[in-house]
């Protein structure tokens, strides 16, 4: 029993990332009808927003502290960050420590701006082109984006820590009446899951309860009719693209402490997120979220030793296997609408 709970928990953080990326992909596909292979790159750029902010906050100058000496006996150089200098060691130190959560604020305008530029500058011209062209051009864009990041940040993963308070793990087992250490779970992963839930809830609420969201939902259902009503749907779709980019970016920012950001993390997640979208059903937002969590948890179950001993290698292929089965038996996915991309 405890093992099962542990696996569910383990699947949640990856599932959250899948769900957030798939949500953005589906928003873009549902509103704009564009298959965006560069969406993983947006996730990756989000993670590097966290890296960047943490680097900015750690900018420092050196002073010579006459009271200290280094191991050679020379006066020691001491680094002081500007933030600490301006705000005092306590406040400054706290801000540096909270670099990743603060990067949320930093990343939103950055990601929205990137989203706008992408949509207006490139994607817009591909609405009427075949899906294969859309895949190809965004695939090219993904390569370009990841190479730019690689140029500036190098090829190695960059460890980016969570705030001190969230380091360490939470002993779930004790709370549920199991032995201590039966189910331990890092705090930050809990934070990530909660964060994902809030974002997903926020996006759904936004679509459900605002006029803007209503128009966009109508546009997803029937673009031409909405346009006939004289509503400038294109402008709203641009904004939607910005939002989808921001969602992917936020997912990336908060993922930085879980997995040290590297330039190809976007591609790694993209392939799986596409599978998630397809399993959930092209164009279905709840489907994307559901499939994201489902596949995350399924993946973590498949990596249990008990299961691996019966079906060796299943952990490596489970997601793809599920995707293939769903595509063949139910091409609409779990919750897809009829007639979307069906032939």
């Amino acid at each position: 029993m405890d093992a099962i709970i542990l696996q569910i928990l383990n699947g949640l953080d990856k599932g959250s990332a899948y769900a957030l990326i798939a949500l953005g992909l589906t928003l873009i596909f549902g509103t704009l009808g564009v298959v965006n292979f560069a969406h993983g790159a947006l996730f990756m750029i989000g993670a590097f927003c966290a890296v960047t902010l943490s680097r900015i906050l750690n900018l420092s100058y050196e002073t010579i502290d006459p009271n200290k000496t280094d191991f050679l006996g020379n006066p020691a150089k001491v680094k002081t960050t500007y933030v600490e200098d301006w705000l005092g060691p306590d406040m400054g130190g706290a801000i540096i420590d909270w670099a990743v959560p603060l990067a949320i604020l930093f990343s939103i305008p950055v990601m929205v701006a990137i989203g706008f530029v992408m949509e207006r500058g490139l994607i817009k011209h591909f609405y009427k082109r075949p899906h294969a062209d859309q895949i190809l051009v965004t695939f090219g864009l993904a390569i370009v984006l990841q190479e730019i990041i690689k140029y500036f940040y190098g090829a190695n993963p960059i460890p980016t820590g969570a705030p001190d308070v969230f380091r360490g793990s939470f002993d779930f087992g004790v709370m549920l009446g199991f032995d201590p250490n039966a189910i331990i779970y890092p705090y930050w992963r809990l934070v990530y899951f909660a964060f994902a839930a809030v974002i997903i809830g926020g996006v759904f609420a936004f679509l459900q309860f605002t006029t803007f969201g209503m128009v966009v939902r109508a546009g997803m259902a029937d673009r031409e009719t909405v346009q006939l009503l004289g509503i400038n749907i294109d402008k709203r779709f641009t904004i939607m693209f910005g939002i989808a980019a921001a969602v992917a970016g936020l997912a990336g920012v908060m993922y930085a402490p879980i997995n040290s950001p590297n330039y190809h993390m976007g591609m790694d997640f993209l392939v799986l997120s596409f599978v998630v979208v397809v399993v959930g059903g092209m164009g279905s937002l709840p489907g994307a979220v559901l499939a994201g969590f489902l596949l995350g948890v399924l993946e973590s179950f498949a990596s249990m030793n008990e299961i691996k001993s019966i079906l060796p290698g299943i952990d490596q292929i489970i997601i793809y296997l599920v995707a293939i089965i769903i595509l063949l038996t139910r091409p609409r996915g779990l919750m897809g609408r009829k007639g979307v991309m069906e032939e």
Partner: protein
Amino acid sequence: MLGLNKRDFSLLLIVAVLALGAPFILNPFPTDSAMAQFNAGYPDLMQRFAIYGIFAIGFNILFGLTGYLSFGHAAFLGVGSYSAVWMFKLLSMNVIPAILLSVIVAGLFALLIGFISLRRSGIYFAILTLAFAQMSFNLAYSVLTPITNGETGLQLTLDDPRILGVSRTADGSIPVTNLFGMEMREFSTLNVGHWSFDFSVGYYVCAVLMLLSFYIAIRIFRSPFGMMLRAIKSNNTRMTYTGLNARPYALAAFVISGMYAGLAGGLLASMDPLAGAERMQWTASGEVVLMTILGGAGTLIGPVLGAGFIKYFENIFSKINDSVLHSWFSFMPDGIENLLVTLVHPFVGKGWHLTLGLLFMLVVIFLPGGLVEGGQRIARLFRRKKPDDAKKSTQSTPAE
């Protein structure tokens, strides 16, 4: 000639001359000159031109003709490589049985995957092939280690049986791949003045097979079968209402292109007898997509051009480092020299992928026909002066 019309035959002839003369053509600069680094005429690189040319020609038979975008073709390349290495381990170091087995195994594998994946089209087909390839890749890394030797990759060892050959040579080393005794790595160098040209057995084996593949591709393009494949791409509805079953046509194209990929994989292993799982990764599948589209999907010569272009840049462009750049711009004043080096730096050397990505985007946006369309447009610009010729060229475009 050879069942081809005049145009196609001259195209084949040009490709043959280029391929057979490649050791000369790709080494235009004297070995001691500053430009020598742009020489591509060394066996290792020339072999890759030919092998990836075959891979792209095959991919084009599927994507260029039927429009089915497979994101998992590297799986067949990988399977081909593994088959060939196993043949070297078990049977003999002759490349013929190895290559035959890789083509057959890749074909069977493609038949299985194609049969399932072709139940869907469009993006769903792309995802299905991607999923199959990723599954193969992940399995090759993990459970299938007894067959694939996992992360290390499959290699030859001294105690392989090699029924028709020897486990180890007289001097106790692993025998090398050969074609009836001619070793693949053998080459002779011809020195003419400051120039030097390498003629390698391995390259010529690849080149001949590439020409054969190219010839078969031309035949397929010009056959009624090829016409049916183009019909699938153009209008699947009309295709089925014309009494044709599109599925076996697409499957046949899929299997043929899988066999081409298997041949390429077998050749890779024949030139260098090891096979690793990374050959099957989806980025490798992406690469052949890039090659085909960059060169011109649906055209005969495009994929070969694309493969050559990408492999050339991968090997030559990536060698340009800052000191090379400084030497180029050294005639300028220092300030401008440094500025230019800084500006160019991100796009060359390790950053060549950035150039490739940008180039690919530009091609998809502005030149959907790839380099071939680019060439045609330039040719048309020159021809515009003579209206008669222009008319002829538009008339002949439908026949490609």
